[in-house]
């Protein structure tokens, strides 16, 4: 959620730049995605220590948001690039001001990408072990909990849970993928003429 909220304006900002500036910006934004997770987790730990944030839920949320922003930016940017420049101009010409253009035209147009980004980030942070481990303190996320249990010996229940989680996340991912594709299909090609608007 946080990363979607942060990533969206960043994507808007990037969409307005061009040339070398744009390349640099994109590289800078993507950097966290390519950094080894351990490195970013440790630096995040140091960072939250500096700004006086306690380890725990807030820290985990913060850390995960930082890790997800690049994915949001990329997904939104891709969709934004397919949107003709004239569409906003057309809305303005028909009497829509900036706020109406954003709410009625741009956000609905981006909605498949936003939804996709949101689901993707959800999966990403659910699975993430390293960041949660470093930032969690006494607050344990699911993978951290599993890891802790694992240290006290082998437990058949553990294997069962892991398998279930594997299936559930895969299923969720596949479903999200399908859902998003269907939505963008509807607004891009000519297959579903009679589909109800949401």
């Amino acid at each position: 959620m946080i990363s979607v909220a942060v990533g969206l304006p960043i994507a808007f900002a990037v969409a307005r730049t061009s040339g070398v500036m744009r390349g640099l910006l994109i590289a800078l934004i993507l950097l966290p995605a390519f950094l080894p997770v351990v490195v970013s987790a440790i630096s995040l730990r140091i960072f939250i220590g500096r700004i006086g944030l306690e380890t725990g839920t807030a820290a985990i949320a913060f850390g995960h948001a930082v890790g997800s922003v690049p994915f949001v930016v990329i997904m939104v940017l891709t969709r934004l690039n397919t949107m003709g420049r004239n569409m906003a101009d057309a809305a303005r010409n028909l009497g829509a001001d900036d706020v109406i253009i954003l709410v009625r035209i741009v956000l609905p147009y981006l909605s498949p990408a936003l939804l996709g980004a949101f689901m993707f980030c959800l999966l990403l942070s659910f699975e993430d072990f390293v960041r949660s481990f470093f930032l969690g303190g006494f607050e344990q996320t699911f993978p951290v909990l599993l890891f802790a249990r694992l240290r006290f010996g082998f437990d058949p229940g553990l294997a069962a849970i892991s398998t279930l989680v594997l299936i559930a996340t895969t299923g969720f991912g596949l479903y999200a993928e399908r859902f998003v594709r269907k939505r963008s299909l509807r607004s891009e090609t000519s297959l579903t003429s009679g589909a109800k608007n949401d």
Partner: protein
Amino acid sequence: MTDPVPAIELKNICKAYGALRVIDDVSLTIERGVFITLLGPSGCGKSTLLRSIVGLAEPDSGTILVDGKDITNAAAHNRPVKMVFQDYALFPHMTVAQNIGFGCEMQGMEKSAIARRSTELLELIRLPDIANRYPDALSGGQRQRVALARALAPDPAALLLDEPLGALDLKLRQDMQRELKAIQRRTGKTFVFVTHDQQEAMSMSDLVAVMNKGKIEQLDSPENIYANPATLFIADFVGATNLFEATVEAKDGDHLTLSVGDAHWRVPAARVTSHRKPDVGEAVSVVIRPEAFDIGASRRKGDIQLSGRLTDQTYLGDRVHLNVETADEKSLLVDARPPISIGEGAEIRLHCRADNLAIIAGR
């Protein structure tokens, strides 16, 4: 047909990108109910001029009046002129009816009134059954008409169309030209159409403004633009043209004597179509349209006679395009009526009435 208050009035509009003057001191008055076309090559400033009127581009100086009101500094979303975009720019997440109703909705119209207006416009564009479809389920021509309906829905003071037929294939384009013209007649709206296609401009417009390098070079009826081009650029850009370089030898009464190569042509001074009238000794260009030529020698006094060798002919059914090379290696385009009984490579004689040409000062 005309009204004392013009639909659109542009006064001394200027716009520059750096050193490049995209619009160079353009003034233009467009009466109500007129179909006017801004014609020019790409980059001549016609689209920028259009975007200035709707407020999507900001002129550096000048005044824009719509229905007599100064809207030069009005926000783009408060202007009473609507625009049809080249790529239609329909909203893909809204149905056709929602698209058409968007402008009315922004004006705060009631829902039932919007629905009535949408239906009305779908009737006008003769697509009453597509209200609940999404734009992506429409063909190019249908999208084009929906875009038109969407711009007409809020009852604009004038409709501006930015090369709206550019993306359609030839057959569809010709159908849409007729359709556009018919809709313009039926609604009585002022249409300002922008195109680089001279045939499109000719076939639809009441008035054509030919633009070049940010200036309007001539504002006239399509017939006059073609027959009486004011500049060399227009003669060349509008229709096919044979250009002859000539010099004014003498002026007597209402006739000019021109020397063209070795020949001397006596032509009516009234056929000088440029704004500036040439003096004796000045260089001029003579414009002769391909269809002005007749084949064979002429016995009529005063006709211009030419001869050359037929190098190529293209048969088009109702017409034949001929390429004729003259003795001084000038290639002429001739538009003749079949049948032509002259073989390629043979000598051919041509003539043209002395008043069936245009003379433009300068070269």
